[in-house]
């Protein structure tokens, strides 16, 4: 049961982080500037990290 809960938590966390990243990209776009561009690029990077962390088990 513990294993199961942990798995579910990880899935939820990943989905949440990914959703937050997309939201950050959309929101940061509304202000023009290097700062918001940096934030957007960071969100893109985090998305890729989430993808990599999902993929790690399959390497």
């Amino acid at each position, binding site marked *: 049961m513990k294993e*199961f809960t942990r*798995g*579910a938590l990880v*899935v939820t966390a990943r989905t949440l982080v990914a959703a937050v990243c997309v939201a950050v990209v959309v929101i940061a776009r509304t202000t023009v500037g290097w700062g918001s561009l940096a934030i957007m690029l960071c969100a893109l990077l985090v998305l890729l990290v989430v993808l990599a962390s*999902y993929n790690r088990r399959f390497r």
Partner: protein
Amino acid sequence: MTTITTPRNRGDRPKAGRVLTYLLVIAIALAIAVPVAWVLLASLKQKGEFYGSPWTLPEGLHLQNYIDAFVTARMGQYFFTSVLVTLLGLVFVLAVSVPAAYVIARYEFRGRAFIEVALLAGLFVNVNYIVVPIFLMLVGWDRALVDVLPGGFFIDNPGVLSLVYAATSIPFSIYLLTAYFRSIPTSYEEAAALDGASRFQIMTRVMLPIARPAVVTVILFNFLAYWNDFIIALTLLPGEGKTLQVGLLNLMTAQKAAADYGRLYAGMVIVIVPVLILYALIQRRLIEGMSSGGVKG
């Protein structure tokens, strides 16, 4: 990946899921089909009918829109430019890609690995990234030749445009053809060589017919790419002889100024219909070919 598994009523759930799936898929199919069908219908409307509800059917067959588009907006002339450029481009790309792919697949020579890597890298270079330098290069050539050809040769030349098309689709074409040539056993060539066929004959008479499916795929994808392109055509043919897509773009701009919807929709139909007919005829081939390429420019 772990997911929450709750016990389910197995007989009930798939049915509901099935209905939902149908609804979803039908909704998406409609979202694609309705705008296209709407354009087809709207091209038959008269000027007055464009005001008010967009959901009304045309009152009659107002074919004047088509005459306007073909003659006044010169879409008829542009149509022939497009056909010419597309056909020439296909001839060029096949003439250079098939032999190159064949020797890469079948011969050992120095620098082969390097050429393969370079072509593979070429897959990542989209034409639209490099259209500006191509344009400047052609302008430069024209300037260098200004004494011999005062009218210019490279810009505004449909032949040059199709050469650029062909050149920029070389990586994709060779990639696809090489993979296919490699999958053909050598026994055919060995038999032909024993019969005394020359290398050239082996390539054209033996291998090319076997590789027909891959060649057809290359033709289909490049046809769509050339026919549908407008950025390169816009840049390299700035004069009178435009392609269909650029002509349609001009119609769009004109419509914004003059609210002349009928002509625009008729122009769209002229551009859409040939592709749709071709697509309906060869869709199975196209979709099969797509899964073999997997690469979209």
